[in-house]
C-alpha cells in the first residue's frame, strides 16, 4: 500500500515537473521570437521574392525604408533568417531525377552511415530520424540509372539493413509560406 502511494506521488511530482518545464520552455520560445507585424510582413514578402525592394515593403506597411532595412538586419542578427537564396531548377543542370531514401540500419552505426552519406556527392540532404526509418535522405541525380547506382552504393554499406527508394514525380509542390508565424509573435 505504502509503496503504491509513494509511486503515485512520484508520478504526480514527475508530471508537475514536466508541465512546469514545458511552461518555462514555452515562455523561453516566446521571449526568443519577438516578431511584430512589420517583421512578419518583411519575412512574408521576402519568402515570396527575396529581391523585393525594401521601399515596396515599406510602402505596404506604411513605415520608412530605414525601418524595414533595420528590421531585416534584426531578423538576420537574431538568427531567424540565415540569408536569402535563389531557387534553381535542377533539370536545367542536367539532373532529372529526385528521390528519397528511407534507410533502416544498425542503431550503433547510424552516425557512421550518416557520415558515409555526407560524403556522397549526389545526396543533398540526410538526417537521422525516428519512426519507420532510421535515416532519411534525399538525392538529386542525373537519371534513374544513376539513382540505382547510388542505391547500390548505400546498400553496399555493411550496416545498412534495408533501404526503400521513392522517386519524386515531376509535380513537386513547394509552399514555404505555409508556416504560421503569427502564432509565435506578438502583434
Amino acid at each position, binding site marked *: 500500500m505504502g509503496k503504491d502511494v509513494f509511486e503515485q506521488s512520484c508520478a504526480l511530482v514527475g508530471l508537475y515537473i514536466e508541465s512546469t518545464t514545458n511552461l518555462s520552455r514555452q515562455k523561453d520560445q516566446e521571449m526568443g*521570437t519577438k516578431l511584430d507585424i512589420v517583421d512578419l510582413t518583411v519575412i512574408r514578402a521576402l519568402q515570396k521574392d*527575396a529581391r523585393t525592394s525594401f521601399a515596396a515593403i515599406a510602402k505596404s506597411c506604411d513605415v520608412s525604408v530605414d525601418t524595414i532595412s533595420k528590421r531585416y538586419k534584426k531578423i538576420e542578427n537574431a538568427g531567424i533568417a540565415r540569408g536569402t537564396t*535563389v531557387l534553381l531548377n535542377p533539370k536545367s*543542370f542536367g539532373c532529372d531525377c529526385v528521390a528519397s531514401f528511407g534507410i533502416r540500419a544498425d542503431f550503433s552505426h547510424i552516425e557512421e552511415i550518416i557520415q558515409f552519406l555526407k560524403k556522397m556527392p549526389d545526396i*543533398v540532404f540526410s538526417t537521422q530520424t*525516428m519512426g519507420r526509418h532510421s535515416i532519411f535522405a534525399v538525392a538529386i541525380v542525373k537519371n534513374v540509372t544513376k539513382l540505382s547506382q547510388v542505391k547500390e552504393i548505400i546498400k553496399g554499406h555493411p550496416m545498412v539493413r534495408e533501404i526503400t527508394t521513392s522517386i519524386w514525380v515531376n509535380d*513537386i509542390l513547394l509552399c514555404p509560406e505555409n508556416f504560421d508565424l503569427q502564432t509565435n509573435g506578438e502583434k
Partner: protein
Amino acid sequence: MTYSFAPRILTYRQTEKNSLDNIDLYIIETLSKDARTSFRQISKELNVSPDTIIERYNALQEKGIIRGSTIILNPKEIGYNAMAVFMIDVSPVEGSRQGLDSSSILETLIKMRNIIVATKTVGDHDLLAIGVVKNFQHLFAVRNEIVAIPGVKDMEVSFWSEITELSPKYFVI
C-alpha cells in the same frame, strides 16, 4: 551532428540543356549566396553594364532556370522544433469511387498548414510530404489531419529534430 546539408546541391555547370555562359553562372552563384545582391554590384564585379545583368536575370527566370528567390528561415527560432516526412498510401478503390485520386489529395496536402513540400512518388508509397512541427502534440495533430483526408489509406511517419534551416532550396526540381 546528425544532419548534413551537402554544400554542393548542384554543380553550376554548363550543359547542352541550359547553354549558360560565364556571366549567367556568375549571377547564379552570387545570388544563391545572397539573393539580395544588387545587380549594380554584380555588374561592377563583371565589368559589364547593369542592364546586361538585369536582362540575363530576367532571361534565366523566363527559361525557368531560376524559379524564384526566397529567404532561408531558421525554424527553431520561430518555434518549430522538428521536421517530419509523411509517406502516404492512397486507397485506389475508395478514391476512384469518390473521384479522389492522388492528384486531388496532393492539392489538399499542399494547402495544409505546416506542409512545405509535397510530391507524388514512385516506389514504396504514393505521396510524400514534408512538414514542420512545433512539438509532439503538434506532430500528432498534423498526422491526424492528413489521415482525415478522404482517400488516404495508410501513412508512415519519420521525424527528426536536427534542423538548422528551412529552405525549399533542397527540395526544388
